[in-house]
């Protein structure tokens, strides 16, 4: 058995995938391992007739997952958008695992991603020795996906330079990859498709051209729906991370987590939790992941400089830092929020004072 720190989805959930394949009698699109219905069940969870429990991989709106799967079935590429920490990569990986049985055909988008990683590169020793040939060609994950009729994933599409992004256009519309050096081309086999993820907060990095945008169906993954759900996610992650970092502080009181999550949710939504007061929203993302960061920072403050118990003051500095990203605009937003909402809330006096001081 492997000792990898993190196993691929198709290995981790191999039993579930097999059970689904057995139970799946619905028609499958060419080269799909499962039918769209079974893929949806794999992602959203459920129980099969033979008693196998499928764990939910994505907790959220069913509708979104259905749209994503239907998109892949129509041979249009799928673009998952969302703020950081909304499970885009997670969903993409599981979709690839369920549909192609392989989530490893991955191109990580960075500012330095070159055209080779989307098309093909050369084995230069071979190239110099024998000249251009198929043997000297080093296929990219994208090219392999085309040849084998599988799903390829592109992470952080908007971080890839615009000229490299453009090489995707032919690929997606013509479904072929020309190799001019050999006078040949690779034609995509049925079952090939692309799932890309991108962060819709930093769209500006390398905004998709409208030509490329048109080749994708876009699904926006939202932040967690309910307060309780988000508190649970934060609590779980903070505890896990706290253990991993070996912080001596006590696990944070649920009350502190709730407060931070409430602040995050209210500012993000631009309305108070009771839905009565409208608020301005800061420019910061305020994702669940950041709430986790704030809690961790508070914990480490409490552990190393406090008495080991997390208090409002420990959280406040991290919180202010997370909210105020733009020193002018966000400060106004934050102060308004403090003065009009936090100040008057019952039992938040210590929190209000701590935030005033941290500011």
């Amino acid at each position, binding site marked *: 058995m492997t000792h990898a720190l993190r196993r691929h989805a198709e290995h981790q959930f191999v039993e579930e995938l097999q059970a689904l394949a057995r139970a799946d009698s619905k028609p499958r699109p060419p080269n799909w391992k499962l039918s*769209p*219905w079974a893929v*949806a069940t794999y992602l959203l969870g459920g129980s099969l007739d033979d008693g196998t429990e499928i764990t939910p991989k994505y907790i959220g709106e069913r*509708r979104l997952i*259905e*749209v994503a*799967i*239907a*998109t892949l*079935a*129509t041979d*249009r590429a799928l*673009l998952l*958008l969302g703020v950081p920490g909304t499970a885009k990569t997670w969903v993409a990986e599981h979709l690839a695992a369920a549909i192609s049985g392989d989530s490893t055909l991955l191109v990580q988008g960075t500012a330095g991603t070159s055209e080779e990683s989307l098309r093909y590169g050369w084995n230069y020793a071979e190239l110099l020795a024998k000249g251009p040939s198929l043997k000297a060609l080093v296929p990219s994950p994208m090219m392999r996906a085309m040849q084998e009729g599988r799903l390829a994933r592109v992470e952080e599409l908007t971080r890839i330079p615009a000229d490299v992004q453009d090489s995707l256009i032919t690929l997606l519309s013509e479904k072929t990859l020309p190799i001019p050096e050999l006078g040949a081309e690779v034609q995509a086999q049925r079952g090939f498709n692309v799932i890309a993820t991108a962060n819709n907060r930093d769209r500006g990095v390398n905004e998709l051209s*409208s030509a490329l*945008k*048109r080749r994708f*169906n*876009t*699904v*926006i993954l939202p932040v967690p729906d309910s307060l309780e759900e988000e508190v649970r996610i934060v609590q779980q992650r903070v505890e896990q991370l706290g253990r991993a970092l070996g912080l001596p502080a006590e696990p944070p009181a649920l009350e502190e987590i709730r407060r931070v999550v409430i602040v995050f949710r209210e500012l993000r939504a*631009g309305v108070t939790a009771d839905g009565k*007061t*409208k*608020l*301005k929203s800061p420019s910061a993302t305020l994702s669940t992941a950041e709430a986790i960061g704030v809690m961790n920072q508070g914990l480490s403050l409490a552990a190393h400089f406090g008495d080991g118990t997390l208090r409002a003051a420990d959280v406040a500095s991290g919180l202010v830092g997370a909210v105020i990203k733009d020193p*002018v605009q966000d400060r*106004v937003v934050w*102060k*308004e929020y403090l*003065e*009009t909402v936090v100040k008057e809330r019952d039992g938040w006096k210590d929190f209000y004072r701590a935030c005033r001081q941290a500011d």
Partner: protein
Amino acid sequence: MDPSPLSIFGIRHHGPGSARSLRHALETLEPDCLLIEGPPDAADVLPLAVHANLRPPVALLIYDPEKPQRSAFYPFAVFSPEWQALQYGLGRKIPVRFMDLPQAVQVGLAAEAETLAEARRVDDPPDPPSPSGPPDPQEDPVADRPDFEPPLSRDPLSHLARAAGYSDSERWWEHTVEHRRDGADVFAAVLEAMTALREAAVSSGLKSVEPERERHREAHMRQVIREVRKEGFGRIAVVCGAWHAPALAKMPPAREDAALLRGLPRRKVVATWIPWTYGRLALASGYGAGIESPGWYDFLWALDARQAHGAGTASDGDRVATHWLTRVARLLRGEDLDASSAGVIEAVRLAEALAALRGRPLPGLPELNEATQTVLCFGDPLSLRVIGEKLIVSERLGEVPEETPAVPLARELAREQKSLRLSPDAVARQLDLDLRKPNDLGRSRLLHRLNLLGVPWGRAVRQRGSQKGTFHELWNLQWHPEFAVGLIEAGLWGNTLPGAAGAKVRQDSESTPDLPTLTALLDATLLADLPDAAGHLMTRLQTVAAVASDVVHLMGALPRLADILRYGNVRNTDARVVGELVHGLVTRICIGLPGACGSLNDEAAEALFAKCLEAHAAIGLLQHPDHTSAWNGVLRQLADSPGLHGLIAGRACRLLHEVRELDTSAAARRLGLALSTANAPAQAAAWVDGFLRNSGLVLLHDEALWAVLDDWIVGLTPEHFTSALPLLRRTFSTFQAAERRQMGGRVAGGMKRGPMWVGLPDGFDVERADRALPLLAQLLGLKG
């Protein structure tokens, strides 16, 4: 088919599929008499339904002429089965009758309940513990929904839907009935299903909780059917809500029904047609039997009508998805969003794939919406809202012909005109109202309300510098005939002038995003004396103020609200709500103002200068210590911030000095600092302008300030002086001539220290003046 002369068609109100099947069924059956679930009181205006100028959506309005609030609306869209039945029947000239329990009786029952409730309140007065009070039948005198379903089944179909594996009964009905295109025997199936449901309801004991009103209604429908059969019609078609169908199919002995209906109270009611909108037909507007997507239904209906005329050959699914998404794309293009034909093609494909994934034969509205969002809107749900408003609900407004009987609103207006002695006249004339007189106050209120309703009979004339005070209002009155149409349209909003005006204000406030417009609307609402709507506006203002980023707008809204709060001149405005609103405004202004004052050009500084003065006055008026201290803090911040436009900084300093936050020496120090040579002359002069504008007296009476200004001018180089002179002159020219003269005298007279004296004119009788002093002291409260 049915051996009896009776065919019962159980439909869903406003279901296009039901309407289509019904139309087919009627054409096959060719009945000689048509009974429709609807108010028999409307028999007189029924023929108008086929009038060329009557265009759905329209509603039958039935109301009690003595108390128009007691009313019921029966809306009809072109795709309503009842409407199609009406059109069929009236078109073929066969007898068409409404058979529901008459509104006369329902209004009568409501009136009776009201009297009872009143009596109960008299019997038992010392019992108002809960704020909501006892359950009050007056709340809902006549549910304005013709098809109020019994409680078993607020949603009877949900049981069937659940059995079929749908979570939502609407959707189930849609798929099993509305989307059927063959229409064969759908009604027999519906009848059977409903019979089973009702039987299940009886056996589970739910039937007993069915309200009496429902039993009355069904009894009355059966009585009408009996009557018609007695008249000898051979093929009777009965169109009713699906839920009622079984109750009409199986006739209990006539005696029972007669007994049930005996002795029900009746009141006189009047019926008329009024224009309706799809928006009000939609569920979102709170109309109980509403439908989510009238625009979508209208589209489906129109598509079918076109097919009936032989256009188009493609299969159904393609047609619906393609036509709908093309319309969506055109709308998006109209809104300046990209929507290419290629995108439409992809969206159609995605909608079909989704439908297949969900096991539906055809893409429905949810699939089409998701496809639109994913393909055409690039995942953005905001653009979808436009589609929701414009296409799915649609903004269509119906029309009614001129011969339609007058709406209650027009009647009420006539009554008001009579009692206020204010007759409509096509010749323009001016009217001067003295608001202290009750009659004039009533007139003003009426005119303001009409204005809000879009019937501008009177136009208020702004009087500048009027000597008459705030209790006078000047109006230009002129009556135009088209106002009658306006009144009919306004009938949509309600049956009484205050009710309709209030509802209209609410609607307007929802669609008005900016603060100044809202404040103006609030002003008009307060003048029209609509406390409820005003309360709603306040809440709305609060919401908008919270997200408003323009401090100038916030400051513009403040003075009027401060007036309301301070003087309460407004009738019955809830001071607490205004207080909260003002508090929020002041807090936001105080936080946002320093930021808003950065990098201003002269023009912007002038505008902000005026707003600051207004806000200062308003906050002074409020006399609230929190507000004052927060505002003074902001002024201090402004006075201290180095990069600020001189005009604002100078005035901030001056205002602080005025409220004694800065003593004279501190103010003088600031003036000196601002006028020191380190500052550009233009900046310094702007500062002086802000500091001194309209206030020569401060200068005349404050020695320290005078000295600082004097020193500054003396110390200027000739070039500096020349560049500063225009600005200085602009400031000084705003002073009263007398003030300037005194200043000039002072400068010419050299540096005379000590307080200024106003010289006594020649022949001043000191003795006589002294005699007035005790009385003055008493007036000023200086002596007991």
